[in-house]
């Protein structure tokens, strides 16, 4: 109980300290704004149905209008309001990010810690699996999944999880391996504590912080990779509210209507930037190589 309290206080201290940094504030502001936009998109969006992909009745008349007071970002090839579509895209972007990062984080941490703690055959087998999935890119896995089970958001999510967990497992393994060798873990083992308790109390607590920071930094890259899977048309079907898909639809008419590919791209860049700003300033706090003086962070 005591140590949990200390951990929470430590984390709160870290976050408070971060607030003095411009970069952290900017990143947090960006992420908050995108989250609010995603949550409120049915209310904010001027044309909610069009944002979800329905084609309006006067589609031909409204097709490819440049940005104007009614349609702030203009309209796409099928006459839908681009602003509404991009707003709804924020929602699917956040869903992709959260599901992929949280799932692969939990799988990765469990496998990484087990590989470091249980030595021998288990370590070798798990390391083999980690190496295996590190070496296949998510897009290619997504291609196989798409051919096997058809289009949908789960192709993107499953494809990304298949590869991302191995990165977290690898990082966790590297940190946990040095912790497992430490005296207090050896003593805990000698005193007959069971393995699960040792892993939870002594190994996991000290490995999770750096891996968590890595996960925050990665959220931007997860988003970029997910969108690029959608951009080649491997993931969600056309007309879905997803930034990659909107850009794919805008590609054939890019010389006539450049705004269709431009606006989702700007949102994509800003969101990815926000996550990476937060992650960077957190990591600077953790990584002894980035600062001169090394201090434990809790």
């Amino acid at each position, binding site marked *: 109980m005591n140590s949990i309290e200390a951990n929470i206080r430590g984390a709160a201290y870290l976050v408070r300290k971060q607030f003095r940094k411009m970069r952290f504030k900017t990143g947090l502001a960006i992420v908050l704004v995108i989250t609010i936009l995603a949550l409120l998109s049915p209310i904010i969006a001027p044309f909610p149905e069009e944002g979800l992909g329905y084609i309006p009745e006067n589609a031909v008349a409204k097709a490819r209008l440049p940005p104007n007071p009614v349609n702030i970002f203009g309209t796409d090839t099928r006459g839908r309001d681009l602003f509404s579509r991009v707003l709804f895209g924020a929602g699917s972007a956040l869903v992709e990010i959260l599901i992929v990062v949280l799932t692969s984080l939990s799988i990765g941490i469990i496998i990484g810690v087990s590989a470091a703690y249980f030595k021998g055959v288990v370590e070798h087998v798990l390391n*083999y699996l980690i190496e*295996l999935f590190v*070496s296949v890119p998510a897009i290619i896995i997504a291609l196989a999944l798409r051919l096997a089970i058809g289009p949908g958001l789960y192709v993107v999510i499953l494809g990304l999880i298949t590869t991302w967990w191995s990165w977290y497992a690898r990082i966790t393994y590297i940190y946990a391996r040095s912790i497992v060798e430490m005296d207090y873990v050896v003593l805990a083992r000698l005193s007959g504590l069971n393995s699960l308790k040792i892993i939870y109390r002594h190994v996991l607590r000290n490995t999770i912080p750096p891996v968590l920071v890595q996960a925050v930094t990665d959220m931007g890259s997860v988003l970029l990779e997910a969108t690029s899977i959608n951009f080649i048309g491997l993931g969600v079907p056309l007309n879905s509210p997803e930034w990659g898909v909107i850009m794919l639809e805008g590609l054939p008419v890019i010389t006539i209507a450049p705004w269709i590919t431009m606006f989702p*791209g700007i949102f994509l860049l800003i969101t990815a930037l926000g996550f990476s700003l937060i992650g960077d300033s957190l990591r600077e706090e953790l990584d002894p190589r980035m600062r001169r003086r090394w201090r434990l962070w809790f």
Partner: protein
Amino acid sequence: MSINYVVKRVFWCILIVFGIIVFSYLILIFSPGDPAVKWAGNPRGPYASMAIEKAREELGLNDPLYLQIARFVYNVFNGNIGDSIAYKQPVLPLIYSRLQSTLELLVIAYVIAVPLGIFLGIYSALRRGSRSDSLIQAVGTILANMPTFWVATGLFLVFSMSGISLYGRINTRLALSTGFHPITGFYLLDSLIQGNLLVFIDVLLRLLPPALAVAVYPLGVLIRLTRTLMAEALLEDFVRVPVAWGVRRDIIIWRYALKASIPGVIQISGLSFAYSLIDAMVVEYTVFGREGLGNLLYDALNYSDFRLAIGLITVVAVFYLVVNTLTDIIQALVDPRVRL
């Protein structure tokens, strides 16, 4: 470093490729639907049942699973995945012929990104805390988070607005009229060998925009990484001592400080080189219409060509493993601290 290490590493890589092939076969078998139908490419029409029957025989779906897997892995290791449905040719030679185009793109991208990234990183490390330093670092952060395909669409737009058509790998009419023919498959190299300057310029011009788009990510990463490593190295004792001796400033920077940061740079360049292959695949066909691995990816999708997909998985994984192994070996050669 020893031969022992290399042999071990190669053996490990073969083991991983084995695992990847098994994994992709498991996707085929355990996904909902009939694997034979998927292997035959969802055929329709009067001869569909024959095609499915042939696919069933090819995979040996009536055998137990371990036999199927063994046969499949044996076939793939022998370079025999079968004929691609989209192209009606053997899969692996097809992929090799396209790999060269993508590799050419990647190499040009890294020829742009690596020196520029290292140079900007050193520049900003030397002026730590100044306005130009924070500007360069901000640019680096933005570049590292740019969606490659978005940059590509932007570049494509700029070039097509200015009236230059950059679609495809080569101007076919120009190539035919000047008697250009591919030898190695790397068009830049081919045109140089044949002394065909016009085609060389044409190919290079068509190569530059996609290469710039692919170069954006490694450039951003290298700017930031080199700056961190250099800033760290500049405070080390092995830099302070020559400063005290009165060694010239540029010698200190280029010979003492840079030498310490090169291994890290090599490591990250190698890692991102392998990953930029994916960026290149996304960009080259969808935006610039170049025939490369991206083209195959696209056709595998449209023809539901599972054989091509498995070929791509294998080749890309092998590429990744080879690049990583080479990076490790180069790093061990450069950095005396790394013992393999």
